[in-house]
């Protein structure tokens, strides 16, 4: 159930706030984090292979499908039927990890591969968010 907070008011007016004329929309994280709302999806990072670029297990990934993929971008790819987050090496056709304990993966002819979008932001919850899955 959604709760919509509405503050009660009794029609008593005092001095009008001097700030009324200066009111603007409050800062929105959507505006900051999402550039192309209709081409963006949000995913949950699972694993430690991207720690070197600051993506840890349980982080939130913001994936933009609109932007063009540049070499060395952090991307989400469909690699043989599952979503993976890696650094793309377009020149050598490799998926690079950002953790020394993980090997880079070559993209071979018989692999199913497509770029699903560029990870344009990642978000760390330093305290667990109650609305995300808690495990």
């Amino acid at each position: 159930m959604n709760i919509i907070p509405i503050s009660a008011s009794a029609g008593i007016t005092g001095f009008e706030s001097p700030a009324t004329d200066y009111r603007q929309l409050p800062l929105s994280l959507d505006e900051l984090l999402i550039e192309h709302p209709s081409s963006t999806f949000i995913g949950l990072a699972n694993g430690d292979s991207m720690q070197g670029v600051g993506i840890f297990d349980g982080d939130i990934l913001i994936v933009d499908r609109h932007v063009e993929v540049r070499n060395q971008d952090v991307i989400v790819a469909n690699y043989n039927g599952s979503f993976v987050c890696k650094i793309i090496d377009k020149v050598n056709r490799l998926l690079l990890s950002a953790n020394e304990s993980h090997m880079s993966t070559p993209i071979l002819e018989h692999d199913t591969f497509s770029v699903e979008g560029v990870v344009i932001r990642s978000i760390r919850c330093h305290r667990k968010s109650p609305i995300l899955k808690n495990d």
Partner: protein
Amino acid sequence: MYALVDANSFYCSAEQVFRPDWRNRPIVVLSNNDGMIVAANRLAKEAGINKFGPYFEAQKLCEQKGVIALSSNYELYGSLSAAMMEVIGRFAPEQHIYSIDESFLSFKHCYPAIPCLTEHAMKLRRAVWKETRLPVCVGIGTTLTLAKVANHAAKKIAGYDGVCAITSDEQRIAILKTMKTNDVWGVGNRIAKRLGMMNIHSAFALSQMKTGLASKQFSIELERTIRELNGEVCKTWDEARADKKQIFSTRSVGNRVTDLSSLCQALSKHASTAAAKARTQGSLCKSMLIFASNSPFDEQPGGFKFVHHFSYPTNDTCELIEAATSAAIARFNPTIRYYKIGVGLINLCSEVNLQGDLFERCRNPNKMLVLDCINAKYGTDSLFLAAQGISQKWGMRREMLTPQYTTRWKDIPLIKC
């Protein structure tokens, strides 16, 4: 020039967006309550699954052929549809969203900014795929009906590669010759049957029919369709969707209803859904059909059907619920295990042309306006009448439901790192 853009088996394609391992698998999507197959992608059709059949009949075949069967995930479809429409809308100055997966575009006054519409449509198709991972087809023609025809060709005729622009008369005629009459927009099976008796079997034959004969024998609508097939603009999208003459909200329930309060709640829920739809199209309801029955497959069919006439036409949720509830109380039978429950607003009139009445109970349309606005802003049923129940045991069955990847935080897709 107009374009019709629509997604290929949209529900199935939507299910594949966040399941890349399903991208080349046969998929069917089931109706509310998992009763019927409402969508099947190409691979599922090739496996021999028919759309609109009951699922229990096809279940065995699905299992044998590895067809993935899913409950409908409307939360996901709605959100992906909105994203898809937004991307499509970037490609034309005017857009009319016709259904969850179809959108008309108008390219009026676009020449010479868009020198080649086919090339433009290819770009659109690629952009929608890249940005939403949904496959679409584009049909382009000089009328809305011909855009529909072209879209049909883009889908069904090999070699078009998902984009068909009807630019010459020869091409138009060639395509119409491959289409049956009931493939034409606005020609239903009943009309197609009657046309068949007059030896009109193809869309081309229909386009050659005398317009006078069409309006006399059938309707002015068919005459307009024929004119449109010949390139004469008769339809605009404001009238592409007429107001509904009846509004039904009905559903079979997941768990049989056997107590009066659940029955009242279910009917109240349907009354409020129907009332909201009536308000959207500016209609008032004079009579409402209220019904509840067990399944026709039960040993002893039973239930009730009742028509309530309102003294003054209304679309007020409270009044509709009141009528539905009192009908249920009067007719409830504790020995019947109710399965099919619903209401129908069967006698509608326009809000605008309503004749007022001196003795009319004072209505407050603003109350409903507030209700509708809040629900539009915060999502369906953010605000509802308690009569429809808070936790709905009798809700629908969706046993094969996929996660709501784009609308629930707990359901966002996992990405391997």
